[in-house]
């Protein structure tokens, strides 16, 4: 029986949704699992809706494109929920039974009674915390919010090992092999400018992840 986990990450351009998916998928690959990762976005610009999808399994994954029936939905910005900045309406469309939602939100995410009733029927679990605040407090930059989101995910559902996560981070930011688009490269430079050394960037981001894992709160639906 397939143990596939399908993750949908919805956020805004510039928040690192694509980077987070890349790091998670690469970590799964390093753990010897099968994974595919792909992003979806329109014209590349800050604050425009951006999504990325990670599928993790122990056997071959054929399906391509958007994750239409996720087990996990990660919301990187409250506007995804309140302003419909995602590729499905409502944002949790297709969520599977016992599914998980993790939102970067200081407050309990704004959900109507209908939505809450639907999520209750799915026996969904809703988690929230300010990933941005954790990133600022621990990592010293809100650019680490995506790492906080990954930390929260691993806190709730340990999909990959922390060793592989660190290696994947190292590969993404440490080596010269990664080619990013112009806007992503600009953000990479800004992020690297926050730290003296790449090793410091990796350590601090690992700390952000750890802190996020314990900062996440459950809202009982």
């Amino acid at each position, binding site marked *: 029986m397939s143990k596939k986990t399908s993750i949908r990450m919805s956020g805004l351009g510039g928040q690192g949704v694509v980077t987070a998916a890349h790091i998670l*998928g*690469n970590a799964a690959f390093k753990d010897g699992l099968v994974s595919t*990762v792909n992003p*979806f976005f*329109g014209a590349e610009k800050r604050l425009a809706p951006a999504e990325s999808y990670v599928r993790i399994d122990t056997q071959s994954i*054929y399906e*391509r494109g*958007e994750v239409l029936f996720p087990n996990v939905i990660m919301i990187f910005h409250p506007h995804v929920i309140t302003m419909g900045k995602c590729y499905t309406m409502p944002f949790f469309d297709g969520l599977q039974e016992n599914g998980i939602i993790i939102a970067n939100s200081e407050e309990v995410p704004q959900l109507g009674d209908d939505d809450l009733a639907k999520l209750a029927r799915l026996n969904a679990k809703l988690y929230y915390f300010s990933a941005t605040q954790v990133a600022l407090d621990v990592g010293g930059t809100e650019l680490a919010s995506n790492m906080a989101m990954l930390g929260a995910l691993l806190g709730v559902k340990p999909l990959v090992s922390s060793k592989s996560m660190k290696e994947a981070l190292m590969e993404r930011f440490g080596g010269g092999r990664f*080619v990013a*688009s112009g806007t992503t490269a600009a953000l990479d430079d800004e992020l690297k400018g926050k730290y003296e050394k790449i090793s410091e960037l990796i350590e601090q981001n690992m700390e952000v992840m750890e802190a996020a894992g314990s900062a996440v709160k459950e809202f009982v639906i």
Partner: protein
Amino acid sequence: MIEQKVVTPEQLFFEAEREEQFITGSEAIREAIKSANVDMAISYPITPQSESMHLVGDIFAEGYIKEYFRGENEFAVMSSVAGAAMAGVRVFTATGGPGTLRAFEMFPTWSGSRLPIVCAFMTRGINSPLTIQPDTLEMAYMLDTGMLMLHAENGQDLYDMVLKAFVIAEKPDVHVPVGVFADGFFVTHTRDKVNIAPADMKLPSYNPNCAPVPAMDMETVPFRQMRDPFVMKSNFISYAAHASWQQEILAAAERARKYIDSLLGGLIEVENEDADILIIASGTAVSQSREAIQQAKSEGLSVGLVKIKSLRPFPTEQIRRLAAKAKAVIIPEFNRVGWLCREVKTAVDDTTKVVGAPRVFGGMTMPPQLIVDEIRRCANE
């Protein structure tokens, strides 16, 4: 230039030990071109292709390619590529969607000039309304350009097809351009496992002396026709020459079949061919079908799969034979017009068993469940 060992195509494709990498389709293009011994690459950006030629530019900087520049638009790029190929060098470029249509006049020109150009097409929707998302509509227009057309299902296919395309295109009895098509985002931006041959190996260089037509020379037929074209004479011989020339290009594509068989393992791949219901697809519609077939299996439904790797030449005889045994043939496509359905209908004896659905377009993902719905419908008929 970087030092690389020249090996035979067979060594590179079938014998060299490969390394598993977790990369995108665009990165698979970079890895293929590293080993393709390309002399010249010309680029022009268009999403979702931009990264591919950007990465080819990077390996030019590393010394894998002799010449690389950016053209002023897609038409200029495809024209420059033609010039380079006429002069006898191995060239590579890529485009997609509106870029394909902007350059369109050059594709039959490449075939007509017998240029063994390899071009990757990263398909996307065509305006208007503007979209950058995946859609295979542009392939409908490409079917009658005289180019060979291979369709990649994933990054692995893309890597292998691009490399093998050079070898097929340059065979003296073929010597026409090859388009390698990959669905934008679903392949180009998707990170997956791809097995890569060592980058310190490369294909033998192109030998223009083996071309069936001489390198461009204004004084030698047939390229004297550039200066002295058939149309200027307007006599019987000129029209007859034009007609037979076009037939010869179609014949060249036919002669490519044996090379596609030996290098790509056939124009099609078939699974469970004796099933009552058959899915025929190309590109990532094949992947969605694989997922659907697994779901159908859990419901006790047995479904066969035909993956079409080569659209030109088209596997007409194989499709006719396979469809004859099936009760129903389902054709899922990532475009509105259903060009693959039309192709299949021209091949089969009984067109009433062909189901041209589902069709998903405009950049949306095809839920495997839509294919399962068609399977159930066919099973209940």
